[in-house]
């Protein structure tokens, strides 16, 4: 069952098959041995993950109530890249992030952050949950929410001191929200709330950021602001994985892309992997509407090269 599903779908569907030849440049340069990695790209995957990778997922399977959500996900994130996670509803995009963060149990598999399990590397990981996952009527100010990002550093039972509040304020001004620090969070617009969440992750000063739909339901100004911050993060050598819904903007926003539909259909540099065929494999028949647009975009990228 397990194997046949994987094989039917497409023999080259897993990250190694389709992705390796092109993503090799990213991964291989990190491990420093381009030749060996290129010579046996597919067999090696799942066995030899570079220990320096910001996020390595080894054959991870996740199931809710016996219903599998993710099958055999095998993935190495290249460092210092913006990676878009793209796929239809119910493809397991959020679940992937939650499984990495150990918020949902894994049925099998292993995840490492810079070579060590997540629970030893929490400080290196910043998480931006979906905006709808919390009650925005909660009696706290924007600054309070951002300060929550420093709680792990503050530690048990100690109060939030001036130093941490200043750090939170600095993060808020980085997302252009310093004027709203004292505003109760229900009085913020959706885009502003999303920025507050982003600021809470920024104040952690993490090396890997996992963002669950940071662009969902935000206005154009906020979207631009967030993209700018993501690019800043990348330029500072941080790695960002973001669940993304809008196929139109994928090539513009993300260096790498992971096409996900219960398993990884393809992953690698956007210009190689964000193709019509791969999108069709990911979305199946549902893509018909998006088909043309994606095709046009893929061509546009090819021309601009």
């Amino acid at each position, binding site marked *: 069952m397990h194997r046949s599903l994987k094989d039917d779908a497409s023999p080259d569907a897993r990250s190694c098959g389709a992705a390796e030849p092109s993503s090799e440049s990213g991964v291989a340069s990190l491990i420093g041995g381009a030749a060996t990695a290129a010579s046996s790209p597919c067999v090696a995957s799942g066995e030899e993950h570079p220990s320096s990778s910001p996020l390595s997922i080894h054959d991870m399977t996740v199931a809710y109530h016996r219903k599998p959500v993710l099958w055999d996900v095998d993935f190495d994130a290249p460092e210092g890249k913006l990676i878009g996670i793209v796929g239809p509803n119910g493809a397991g995009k959020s679940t992937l992030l939650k499984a990495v963060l150990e918020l949902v149990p894994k049925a099998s598999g292993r995840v490492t952050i810079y070579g060590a399990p997540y629970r030893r590397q929490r400080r290196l990981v910043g998480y931006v949950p979906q905006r709808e996952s*919390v009650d925005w009527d909660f009696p706290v100010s924007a600054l309070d929410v951002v300060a*929550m990002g420093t709680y792990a550093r503050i530690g048990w039972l100690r109060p*939030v001191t001036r130093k941490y509040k200043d750090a939170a304020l600095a993060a808020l001004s980085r997302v252009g929200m310093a*004027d709203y620090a*004292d505003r109760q969070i229900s009085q913020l*617009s959706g*885009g502003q709330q999303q920025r507050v969440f982003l600021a809470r992750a920024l104040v952690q000063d993490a090396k890997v950021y996992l963002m669950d739909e940071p662009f969902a339901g935000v206005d154009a100004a906020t979207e631009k602001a967030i993209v700018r911050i993501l690019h800043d993060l990348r330029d500072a050598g941080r790695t960002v994985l973001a669940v993304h819904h809008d196929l139109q903007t994928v090539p513009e926003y993300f260096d790498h892309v992971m096409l996900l539909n219960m398993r990884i259909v393809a992953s690698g540099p956007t210009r190689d992997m964000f193709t019509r065929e791969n999108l069709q494999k990911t979305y199946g028949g549902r893509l018909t509407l998006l088909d043309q647009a994606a095709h046009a975009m893929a061509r546009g990228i090819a021309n601009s090269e």
Partner: protein
Amino acid sequence: MRNEECKMTGAAPWAGFRRWCRVVVGLLGVFLVLWASTSALAQASAGRSKSLADTRLELPSAAQVADVLLLRDYNTRVVVLGTMLLGLGAGVIGTFLLLRKRALMGDALSHATLPGIALAFIVMTRFGGSGKSLPGLLVGATIFGGIGVACVLLIRGATRLKEDTALGIVLSVFFGLGVSVLGVIQKMDTGSAAGLESFIYGKTASMLASDAKLIAGAAALTVVGCAIFYKEFSLLCFDESFARSQGWPRLLLDGAMMAMVVMITVIGLGAVGLILMIALLVIPPAAARFWSHRLGPTVLIAGGIGAASGWVGASISALAARLPAGAIIVLTAAAAFVLSMIFGVQRGVLVRGVELWRLRRSVARQHLLRAMYEAEESGSAGAGVGEVELLRARSWSRRALGGGLRRARSAGEVEPGDAGRWRLTEAGRVAAARVVRNHRLWELYLVTHADIAPSHVDRDADELEHVLGAAMVEELELLLARDESRAVVPASPHAL
């Protein structure tokens, strides 16, 4: 409003002070009203007592009232202090319970204690004890309260039933079990079980000093616990998955929170009874939300409302001995809730109504001034503007326009001209020019800076410079002046 906040950030300490003043004054007002109605009730019953001998409440004389208020009487002192501290502890932990969206968990918990109390009684009588030792009964209550909570979590976790369903099942089944065991006890030959029922409805008046001390201890533990776990609790309540991703132990924190709820509930059973205990956990925090948008103040206010409800309720019941204290305490808390809902400074009905009304007035005034100004500007109305033209300018009713004109006239902004026409006064023209200028600058700003505008737009901003900064306003004014299609720049009547 936004403008006001901008100004407020400039003088942050004062703003905070002012906000606190409003909250304190409001809360004082609420309790003043409560006290006034209490004494009015007492006096009313005093007046009627002679004619309606059957239903009379025991009449507090002035001396009695003073005794109760000043806690001169030993029993009253014990009861009032005990219920106050219970209200305080319940209000504080209740805030977190409410924010954790577990308000009904407290209800299931308190109902689940009944079989524990009854079984503890049986066990203690079997082993030769009196059966009514309070610590023994409370241990039984705690164990079964814990079992009740565990059952809810188990049903929710192991099946796909939702939490409310699990709560309904546990609450009713445990209560039923408790009532059955109480029935069994009545038939037992050892059974001097009279008094166990008091745990159902509570029996505040018989509170002993030792009970009050127990309550004081539990309340102190709760307040201290909430103070030291303040940061952790607030994070868990706001965003559980983020808290867990950061490595905070959810089970431990939830356990600590529920342990405090169990403690306060079990301790409070004797005072207000297991049916009404939920009210002390839920109502004060719910009322407090109308007074503050911040967690710290909300917790303190909830504790304060809880304590005040305990105090007022116990005092009323001490003055009118036929009124059961538990019920009166809950009703007092409910009264505080209703008053908070109406008068609360943050989202009280009254405040919101007034704000809305003010906003409408201000918008109507601006519309009128702008319509007048633009009519005069277009030059067609040298001798004033007719109501017909004004009616055409906007979609407002004749009545609304009439009211607006009347208000503007009494404000000295318009004056009647000849033949039922209206003119702007000199002061009115200044005000109108300002309104028109701001309106046009906003429009221009939205057109030229559409991408950053939405986070700044505040149509009610009287001084745009506050919102946009002086440089931006200057730039916009230049743009406005240059724009050919808008040759109708308001000739500024005063230095801008």
